[in-house]
């Protein structure tokens, strides 16, 4: 198909994001597409002749979309009164997913700050399908707008195929759904059916009806029919008499001399009834059957034929959960119609349609069917006599037209007991037991009934959606086996966000949690840590890193620094958390990026972690920060407020309502719930706060201690851990590290935005100083305003400032950032000298060389690891001087 190029370009997606975790739009996954409407930006739906009519004809089922009008036909009404293309894209993308068999309902379309550019947001369940549906939506809108034709049916069919390929199959789906109902988290490990349920050390794995405790040995035993029979016999489970045979002749001899006719011939290794032929009475039939079985397995078994119906009993964790009677595809003769015609009549049943997602499948007369017919003395064109049952298939698989009828409620308890024993003796946690019985309501022993096969990883579809009878929630039974009551597979997760302090809080809380003996996984801007082991050293404050921690089988608890970038790009890396800590929302860095312009915008993003707090969890919020305090309204769990002053209004009124709080009174940290209070620890025992003098570190400590309290960590552990969490390099590299040098003081800090610098300058007053020097740089992706403001702050507080070009110029010309910073510095009232040194390492040595008694040096560590390395190198070079932290 040829599209004129100019038209193709005129409505484009700038980017298409899959927000896979809770996000700013919804708690569940959404696609966020940034669409530039291009030349259509001023063309509402009612302005293009025929546009609405074409859309309504192509996708008539959109009449169900209620849209903002709130009633059936609402969206069509919006089309008539005129709505913009972004909104239409959203509705079509939703509708196409629904038509592809994946029902989703939520959508939004919002303007961005750029004219004609919109964010189109809609829910999805399968990302591949959703992205494809979005592309098709664009085609549909453009085709309608340009009065072109589009084969919508073909597109829907294609989308349906994509959905069937990439979505979980029904068996796995049933388990995942059951897990979801119990709030057990799940994630797919591959593009097939391998799924992780639960997190960290509580995780389990499944793949359809196979679990991580399904033994490899048990599976191979189930494959070996002869061994299975031997084991079943030893356990007193009725099985047909049978023997392995070496040849066709041996098969017939065994059938007549040892087993007795009629017989069944089947492969020794195999499953799903492949190569099995039953009810054989003649030598010719046995010979043929031997060959069929031999094609599947080297060894063949002849066993006594047991008359009766086929039943499949599903045993899960030693309990009988479901049972179905299975009938192979067959027709009953009427003396008038051919087999082919009778099959055609049966296929008229609307439940028999193509594909795997239906309750019944179509019966197909293929070569296998023809062979089976020949075996019975028919061809597809024979006319069977009235009442004669003609088999089209030997096995009762649903996929080949068989039917399944639920019989769970009528199984005799003794039959159930034998099935459970059969699973036990083979050693399977989930087993499909094949039973042949004339009457399943009576014990097998009374009727010559037998157990003929034990299947590992049995299909669940016949129980989930039987052709007749009651569906059974077998996924629930599997989930309950893996996660006994009271265990929902979750480990405690604490999420931390805010403009400043989040890395310190993340590390401090991790330190407290480790005091309980747990293995703690932690992600922050410095990397991913599993206890002391650092498994990644990049900025790991995004959802992928959180996902890696939750996959780790060692991890008992997790603390995630959660930056705004990741939330905007992909949503949260977890579906819910026990603790959400928000330190503060200030005029921080990065304003102006990704359509986030104000602290209020930022608050909306960071609020996501508060919205993700579980009902039994807690949001730990800064009472002194109005934007943070306001997040309390969005928390379904409990809220704890922290503030340095106990008379903070927010905190006081929260306590009046019985809420939890943590604050400082006369130098002591106090925990409060309503009017109950408990003194926790003196602030001066927390080394990080420098005797309580560094206000922002006191706030950080309050957040951590409050969170630890809400995680039910015992008070002794909290106090012990708080007292040994220092601010030396080993705890939080680059976060207010204090080093003594030649009688002067060096402070290393990562702070790189206006509020962080302001807090830093305030905190520096604690240290005696004669002369103050700062080494500073800026990453290029800050707003000019912010960079200039930083220059001004530095110029007001320092006598001398050394600046260098950062390695992360982020899209700016060399020297550009420095220029802006200088503009700010010029406004400063204190600064005497401004030196620019190109090489950051040289710059670092230069300022360190200058330090003398009474000097105070602020080293801003833009790349923490390398800066800390240089400092360590420098210090170790000074053999005569001893490296000692002030604390």
């Amino acid at each position, binding site marked *: 198909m040829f599209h004129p190029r100019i038209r193709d370009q005129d409505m484009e997606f700038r980017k298409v994001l899959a927000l896979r975790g809770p996000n700013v739009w919804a708690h569940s996954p959404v696609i966020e597409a940034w669409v530039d409407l291009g030349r259509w930006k001023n063309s509402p739906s009612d302005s293009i002749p025929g546009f609405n009519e074409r859309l309504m004809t192509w996708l008539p089922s959109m009449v169900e979309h209620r849209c903002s009008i709130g009633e059936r036909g609402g969206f069509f009404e919006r089309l008539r009164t005129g709505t913009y293309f972004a909104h239409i894209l959203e509705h079509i993308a939703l509708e196409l997913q629904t038509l592809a068999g994946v029902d989703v309902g939520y959508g939004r379309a919002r303007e961005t700050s750029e004219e004609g550019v919109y964010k189109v947001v809609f829910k999805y369940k399968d990302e591949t399908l959703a992205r494809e549906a979005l592309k098709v939506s664009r085609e549909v809108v453009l085709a309608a707008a340009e009065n072109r034709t589009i084969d919508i049916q073909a597109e829907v069919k294609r989308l349906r195929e994509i959905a069937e390929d990439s979505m979980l199959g029904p068996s796995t789906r049933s388990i995942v759904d059951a897990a979801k109902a119990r709030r057990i988290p799940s994630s797919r*490990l*591959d593009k097939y059916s*391998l799924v992780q349920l639960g997190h960290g050390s509580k995780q389990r*794995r*499944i*793949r359809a009806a*196979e*679990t*991580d*405790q*399904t*033994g*490899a*040995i*048990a*599976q*191979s*035993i189930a494959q*070996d029919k*002869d*061994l299975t029979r*031997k*084991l079943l*016999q*030893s*356990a*007193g*489970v009725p099985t047909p008499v049978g023997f392995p045979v070496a040849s066709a002749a041996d098969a017939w001899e065994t059938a007549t001399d040892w087993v007795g006719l009629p017989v069944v011939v089947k492969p020794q290794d195999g499953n799903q009834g492949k190569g099995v032929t039953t009810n054989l009475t003649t030598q010719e039939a046995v010979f043929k059957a031997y060959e069929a079985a031999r094609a599947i397995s080297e060894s063949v078994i002849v066993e006594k034929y047991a008359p009766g119906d086929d039943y499949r009993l599903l045993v899960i964790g030693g309990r009988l959960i479901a049972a179905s009677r299975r009938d192979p595809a067959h027709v009953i003769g009427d003396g008038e119609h051919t087999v082919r015609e009778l099959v055609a009549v049966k296929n008229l049943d609307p439940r028999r349609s193509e594909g795997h997602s239906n309750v019944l499948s179509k019966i197909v007369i293929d070569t296998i069917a023809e062979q089976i017919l020949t075996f019975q003395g028919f061809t597809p064109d024979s006319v069977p006599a009235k009442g004669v049952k003609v088999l089209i298939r030997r096995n009762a698989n649903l996929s080949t037209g068989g039917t399944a009828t639920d019989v769970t409620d009528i199984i005799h308890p003794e039959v159930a007991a034998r099935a459970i024993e059969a699973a*036990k*003796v083979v*050693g399977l946690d989930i087993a499909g037991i094949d039973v042949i019985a004339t009457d399943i309501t009576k014990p097998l022993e009374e009727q010559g009934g037998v157990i003929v096969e034990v299947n*590992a990883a049995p299909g669940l579809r016949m129980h989930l959606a039987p052709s007749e009878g009651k569906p059974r929630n077998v996924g629930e039974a599997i989930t309950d086996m893996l996660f006994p009551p009271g265990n929902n597979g979750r480990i405690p997760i604490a999420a931390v966000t805010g403009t400043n302090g989040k890395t310190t809080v993340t590390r401090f809380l991790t330190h407290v949690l480790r005091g309980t003996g747990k293995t703690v996984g932690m992600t922050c801007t410095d990397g*991913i840590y*599993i206890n002391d*082991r650092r*498994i*990644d050293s990049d900025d790991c404050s995004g959802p992928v890193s959180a*996902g*890696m921690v939750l*996959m*780790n*089988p*060692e991890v008992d608890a997790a603390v995630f620094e959660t930056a705004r970038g990741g939330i905007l790009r992909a949503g949260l890396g977890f579906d819910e958390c026990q603790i959400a800590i928000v330190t503060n929302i200030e005029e921080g860095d990065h304003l102006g990026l990704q359509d986030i312009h104000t602290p209020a915008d930022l608050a909306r993003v960071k609020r996501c972690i508060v919205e993700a707090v579980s009902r039994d969890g807690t949001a730990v919020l800064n009472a002194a920060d109005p934007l943070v305090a306001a997040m309390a309204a969005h928390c379904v769990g409990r809220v704890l407020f922290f503030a340095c002053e106990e008379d903070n209004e927010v905190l006081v009124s929260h306590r009046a309502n019985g809420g939890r709080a943590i604050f400082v009174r006369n130098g002591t940290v106090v925990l409060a719930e309503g009017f109950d209070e408990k003194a926790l620890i003196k602030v001066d025992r927390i080394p990080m706060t420098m005797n309580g003098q560094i206000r922002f570190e006191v706030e950080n400590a309050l957040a951590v201690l409050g969170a630890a309290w809400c995680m039910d960590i015992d008070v002794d552990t909290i106090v012990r851990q708080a007292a040994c969490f220092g601010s030396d390099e080993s705890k939080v590299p680059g976060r207010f590290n204090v080093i003594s040098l030649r009688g002067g003081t060096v402070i290393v800090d990562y702070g790189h935005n206006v509020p962080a610098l302001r807090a830093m300058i305030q905190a520096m007053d604690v240290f005696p100083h004669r002369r103050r020097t700062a080494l500073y740089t800026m990453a290029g992706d800050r707003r000019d305003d912010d960079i200039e403001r930083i220059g001004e702050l530095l110029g007001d507080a320092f006598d001398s400032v050394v600046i260098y070009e950062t390695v992360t110029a982020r899209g700016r010309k060399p020297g550009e950032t420095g220029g802006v910073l200088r503009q700010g510095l010029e406004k400063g009232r204190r600064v005497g000298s401004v030196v620019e040194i190109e090489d950051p390492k040289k710059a670092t040595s230069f300022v360190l060389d200058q330090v003398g008694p009474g000097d105070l040096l602020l080293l801003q560590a833009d790349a923490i690891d390398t800066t800390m390395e240089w400092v360590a190198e420098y210090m170790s070079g000074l053999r005569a001087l001893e490296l000692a932290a002030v604390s």
Partner: protein
Amino acid sequence: MRLLRGPNVWARVPVLEVSVAYGSAALIAAELLRVQQDAGCRVSFSRTSGSKAIVEFEDEEIARRALSLVLYGSRDGATEADLRECADDVLLGPNTRALYDAARRRGIPVRRLDRGSLLQLGYGIRQHRLCGAFTEQTSSLGETIGWDKPLAKEILRAVGVPVPEGRRVTDAEDAWTAASEVGGTVVVKPEAANHGRSVFIGISSRADIVAAFESASTAAENPSVLVERFIPGAEHRVLVVDGKVAAAARGDALYVTGDGIRTIAQLMDEVNLDPRRGESAECPLSPVGPDEVTLAILSGQGLAVHSVPPSGTQVLIQRNGNLSTDVTDRIHPGNHEIFALAAQTIGLDIAGIDVVAEDLARPLQEQGGAILEVNSMPGLMMHLHPEHGVRRPVDDIIVAKLFPEGSDGRIPIIAVTAGTAVAQALAAALTQAGVCTGLTCTAGVFVNGRLVRSGNHATSRSAYDLLLHPQIEAMVAETPESAIVEEGLAFDRCDAILGPPHRVLLESLTPAGVVTDSVERALAIARR
């Protein structure tokens, strides 16, 4: 002819009892023993008694066929070579054999469950199953994930286990693209590589990579090929059992030494005489041959298979694959943690981890080392019989995992010679006492009083079968003299004899066992 499968009137070992109608019983006994031994069976006992030849056997099928050969020669065309071939198929391979013997050393009863490697250790409720280095706790999903190398790598990377960068490639062009992404030298190998076959190591040129792809994609049934960063260092195999490193072996390069006479091909043939080299999975080492990897290595040295290296010259044949130096004690503590984590992450209780590193004594990350694969059912021979260094008792470690110190997997067995009624009374009393009891007697087989097989089951065969039952906590076996004489015992030891003691039963009695006529006394023993 009859097979006495357990302790019998002739010996404590299973024997074949042949009544010789004509010819010398002694000659037949001697010949039957020899033929079985030559086929590879571990048998040593034979004797005669009158016209009876009594010969130990290891495997029923081999015993029958050996007898037929001895008595009738190659009448039906069968030869001793056929018998050896059959023995290769049905006798236990070296790994399973080692575990079998380790269990026996601990006094744990062991039996084979199939013609393959499946073993039952212990009886009844105390039993555990083992199949090579698979235990009944080995998760099938763990095995599957280990096999799916890209998936395994992804999961390992996520939890912080160092793995080589790289990916699956679709064609030769893609292989080159992937190699460029990785940078430097790479490894090209089939996804289902086994024993290092068709694995191309340390190549970087486009021509080499394309050629390696072509070879790797046709080497295995699965045509998928991986391109990964080349990790310098030696290949190691680390065996992890239940989260602990049980052994580690370093693979050394294989050289042949020229003698100025023979060609490289001939020198390699000599290498293959080593019994540890073979195609089967049980062989710890692959045979060497003129495959493409070897040819490439040779051409790299300016040689070909028909070259005759001068006397004393060392010629590199394989870069790895001689996993033979034990390095268990060298492993850095941090690496211990990584190996345990790798096995746990894949989900295997027993895992063979392939690691490439310069030296396991230093942390893997520090030296750019990586874990290549986490294998289920690892071979044990390289640890049990290292070429250099200490032998590691990995067989004992695996058995000890299933049977901690002090447990031997046995349940109380009471042999009853005082008749069916007495056996039934004892079984009823045991069941009454809450012990899940199995009973074999002339009235049938019963489990906790429920008839599970009817007919006369006062036989050794029935008692033997009942010991398979995964729930029974004690067994009462009616053991008439006829069963002992005709079949041998079903068990190697019993805890009490209720009734008149037969000699063979007495010999089987445990040191603490009793002979008694009192049901109460036997009950007390069975409940002990």
